[in-house]
């Protein structure tokens, strides 16, 4: 599904503050695989995710999705396959817009945004129904501005928004980092359910080793811009939570 070949990303090349964020990573992520990436700060996790999303372009190497080379494709063109949940709840939603406006944009992620009014009663009811599945009681607040919601509510809605339009790849960049433990759990559980229901290929970056243990069917450890450990589904099942903690010991 996603093929990353010998990818490098060097920031500030040739300057004293040169950073080799990603150092020749090769990854082949199969369809419906749920890959969890762990690693210390500065190990290149987020850069790797940005490379897949297209918000950062690689110094060398190639990335392809469904055998299509997307290395040179701008991030907004990759939205055809990829939906994204950011670390900061503010980044994934537009605060000044209403919930329904946010969902409208998400519903036409892969389509052109034309000069017709897309929000009608049918659409509203459809969204209300979807939102009610979250069980957060937000279905009657769809005209409310996104900015009035809590971080947890916004992340949960962002997740739901990502499956509003056809989506193959879901990128989760520490989606629960800014949330309290309870909201974090709601968000992670929602993510896991959506990934299974919509059979998404997904990548999760997390610092929460319990989440890394609990979710996903493949886990990699990154260090200094490289893949240090790579456990597939079988090995991940055999893995104990303490083994994960030992990786950082």
């Amino acid at each position, binding site marked *: 599904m996603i093929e990353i070949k010998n990818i490098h990303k060097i920031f500030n090349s040739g300057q004293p503050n040169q950073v080799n964020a990603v150092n020749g990573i090769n990854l082949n992520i199969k369809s419906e695989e749920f890959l969890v990436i762990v690693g210390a700060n500065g190990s290149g996790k987020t850069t790797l995710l940005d490379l897949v*999303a297209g*918000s950062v372009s690689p110094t060398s190497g190639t990335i392809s999705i469904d055998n299509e080379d997307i290395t040179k494709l*701008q*991030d*907004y*063109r990759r*939205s*055809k396959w*990829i*939906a*994204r949940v*950011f670390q900061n709840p*503010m*980044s*994934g*939603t*537009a*605060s*000044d*817009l*209403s919930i329904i*406006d*946010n969902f*409208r*944009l*998400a519903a*036409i*992620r*892969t*389509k052109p*945004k*034309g*000069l*017709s*009014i*897309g*929000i009608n009663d049918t659409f509203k009811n459809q969204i209300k129904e979807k939102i009610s599945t979250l069980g957060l009681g937000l279905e009657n607040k769809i*005209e409310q*501005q996104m900015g009035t919601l809590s971080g947890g509510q916004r992340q949960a809605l962002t997740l739901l928004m990502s499956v509003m339009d056809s989506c193959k790849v879901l990128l989760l960049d520490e989606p629960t980092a800014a949330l309290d433990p309870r909201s974090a759990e709601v968000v992670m559980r929602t993510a896991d359910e959506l990934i299974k229901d919509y059979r998404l290929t997904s990548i999760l970056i997390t610092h929460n080793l319990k989440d890394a243990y609990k979710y996903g069917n493949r886990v990699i450890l990154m260090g200094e811009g490289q893949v240090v450990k790579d456990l597939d589904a079988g090995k991940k099942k055999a893995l104990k939570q303490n083994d994960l903690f030992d990786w950082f010991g």
Partner: protein
Amino acid sequence: MDFYLTALLQGLCFSALALGIFISMKIFNIPDITTDGSYTLGAVVTAVMIKHQQPVYVVLPAVILAGGLAGALTGIIHTKLKINALLAGILVMTGLYSVNLTIMGTSNIPLNSFPSLFTLWHISEDPNQNTFWIVAVFVIAIILIIGYLLKTDFGIAMRATGNSESMIRALGVNTDRMKITGLALANALTAVSGYLICQNQGFTDISMGIGIVIIGLGSVIIAETLINWLRITSVWLSLLLVLGGSVIFQMVLAITLDIGVDANLLKLVTAGFVLIIVSLPRLNFKGR
């Protein structure tokens, strides 16, 4: 009373400019001051074309196109060359001065002897009232168009671009193109104000745009204060309040002149008035 009617007319004519500033500043979050240039450009294109016996309904699309081009240019400089929006606007505005002067060939064109938008229909005997009805219909048509636009999928994407760029890019929108389109739209509206004002006052002058951006800013800030105060989220009401802001602004200036303040001090009064509106919501009279 006629004095205030004139101010009302000015306010209506300037409301297109205020809507332009509303789009660039509030919707796209871009401080665009191409305004001074594109407003004059609108008036210049109008004057030259009217002088060459072009009917006003042919002039209007040309004005929109000219303003749009000016805005798009600022947008391209800002997004593609990654130059600060303020500087991009200043560059285009400065360049436009020469362009305007070249198109005009002179620094002033009187239009009184030519037919205008306001002589096209005769609704009322009184020329000012006649102008009022025509410009009112014109402005309401603009608000209907902009309001509809902001409600469409494209419009929602526009609003999201100024609000959360990371989100809207992840949702498949080319934000550079969106900003260029937005600035083109904003400056097309600004040029339309030039089109209206020069026909209303009966001449185009090369210096008529100097400092005009403050009128748009002031109107939008009045509107914004009201929007926040009344907690308005409706797009339609916001646009109407921008129109209201533009009229209030001109009324305040008219009152200032009416109570005998020296006309030479008008720009100072304008700046002071905008300062007061900006600072009012920030002042806390009750203390902490």
